[in-house]
């Protein structure tokens, strides 16, 4: 495994125990290189979201090994994993998942405040930069609950970018958007990948979306069919 690899999964197995024992993920092996834009496709229930949660370090109930930036993260304590997520992984969900009582700007700033490496002014400047990058800077001081769905998703992407993470993960980031906004989000991702050389891993249903990525990992019944 060279320095070039951002994320590597080795022999990942996952079981659901409720209501009956069910083998969801069977021996998953793959890796993502630095700057790669990868999509995971598959039918509903094939375990692609489950895999994403494991890769995101939020789900720790699995067998196998997960490496992030060449470092083994499997088996680490929750608190440590939270720190790793904070500094290395940016998240974009299907549903917009902003804190509705905070302003757009505050939402974007929050992960950086938690990281605590920069001063408040620097964080605020960075956040405005990210919002400008996504062309929603004029919404910065509105409450997160007062902007449209497409805007929310762009704010969520800005938030994912704030700590300059090693990788951005998306769980159906366009799944809840109309085609215009979906196209918009897709273009943003593509730009991030090309212009900023960011690594991206996106779970999606959308063939049009997947086709524009560098590599498609196709899953079926808990295994990788092709990659």
């Amino acid at each position, binding site marked *: 495994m060279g320095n070039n690899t951002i994320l590597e999964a080795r022999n990942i197995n996952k079981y659901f125990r409720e209501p009956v024992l069910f083998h969801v993920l069977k021996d998953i092996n793959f890796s993502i290189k630095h700057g790669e834009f990868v999509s995971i496709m598959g039918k509903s229930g094939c375990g692609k979201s489950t895999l994403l949660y494991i890769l*995101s370090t939020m789900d720790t109930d699995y067998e196998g090994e997960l490496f992030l930036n060449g470092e083994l993260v499997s088996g680490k304590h*929750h608190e440590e994993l*939270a720190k790793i*997520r904070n500094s290395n992984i940016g998240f974009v*969900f299907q549903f917009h*998942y902003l804190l*509705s009582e905070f302003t757009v700007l*505050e939402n974007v700033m929050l992960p950086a405040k*938690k990281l605590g490496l920069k001063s408040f002014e620097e964080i605020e400047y960075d956040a405005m930069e990210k919002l400008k990058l996504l062309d929603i800077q004029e919404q910065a001081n509105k409450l997160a609950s007062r902007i449209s769905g497409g805007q929310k998703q762009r704010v969520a992407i800005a938030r994912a970018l704030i*700590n300059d993470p090693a990788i951005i993960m998306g769980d159906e980031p366009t799944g809840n958007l109309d085609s215009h906004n979906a196209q918009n989000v897709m273009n943003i991702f593509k730009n991030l990948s090309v212009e900023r050389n960011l690594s991206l891993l996106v779970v999606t249903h959308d063939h049009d979306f997947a086709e524009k990525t560098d590599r498609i990992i196709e899953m079926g019944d808990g295994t990788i069919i092709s990659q």
Partner: protein
Amino acid sequence: MINWKVILSISKTHLLSRIKQSSIAALGVTFGIGTFIILVSFMTGLNGLLDGLILNRTPHVHIYNEIKPSERQPLDLYDKWENSFKLVHSVKPKLTQAKIHNALPLIQELRKNPDVKGAIPQLKSQIFYISGSIELGGNLVGIDVLEEVRLFNFGDYVVKGSPEALNNYENGILIGSGVAEKMSLDIGNTVQISTVRGDLFPLKIVGIYQSGLADIDNIQSFASLKTVQKILGEPKNYFTDINVKLFDIEKAVPMARNIENQFNLTAVDIKTANAQFETGTSIRNLITYAVSITLLIVAGFGIYNILNMMIYEKMNDIAILKATGFSGKDVQYIFISQAILIGLFGGILGLVVGYSISSVIDTLPFETEALPTIKTYPVNYSVWYYVIGISFAMISTFLAGYLPSRKARKIDPVEIIRGQ
């Protein structure tokens, strides 16, 4: 490493965005703490008043010669009947002098003791107040008035005139208010008194004494030691009682024992003399604390409820926070700090409300014959009750916040995100 600034700013936003709920939770605490402060200030003020009524002017140790029969009768000295059953009829008390033998050296000795705040002699005598052909029985007590003022708040009970006047007039008397009323006497008048032996003395009234206990005020008057010694025709070392005040009331019991054994006198300690007062005080305190704690528990349940509901509403927020790198502990602190903030604001407001209402109570008129020095309801402003109050508020809200916050810590973000 916990970034408190971020956590507090999140809890602040949470609290302010549902200001109604937060205020109601805080008002619950305010109500509990405010009531506690009012209750405890008023109750302990009243306790202090009642204690003062008796305890402040009661000597911690009272030394005197008691009239009683001898424990060893002459018959006991005859060894021929040592092991026999003896019966003595019509036992009479032993003839002793009422005065305390060697009183002055004894007082010197007591004053040297580091536990003793003061030891002062008194001279009690039976007299009659003469008004025309009417004779009223009474007591005249000779006192060292300045020391009585210093040690036993004597000045509080002189309602007219001043206690110091006793020292200024050769034949002055502080007359009991009951006596004065019966005989239509006032300051500046002269009252005739007669000793048991029948000697008549005119005394000038320099003040009126009112203890609040009618039985005492109807008979008791005070004069200087010198005056009473002169009236009785006794020398300057003639005293019937010694009153001792200690720095620490708890030492009264062993001290009384020691004096009895050492000097062959009767010494009564304050605990034996006034046992019922302590009981009353501790029961009133118990009631105060029980009521306050009940109120705080009710307020605590209110906070518990509101936080619990809030955590259900905030499931999504919790999942996002966790997904973006906040740890379970951070999330727990966010909710605990909300509970503590509610407790802090509610508690401080409670202290303010408690203090304001206490000061209003403090100005309400409360006048009674029994308590000449009291004009308004008594309130105790001890800072300790405010410290206890705010600690109560913080502890109870912490406990109320702890359980819901633990639940928030344990929430699995994957389940929430998946559930959408």
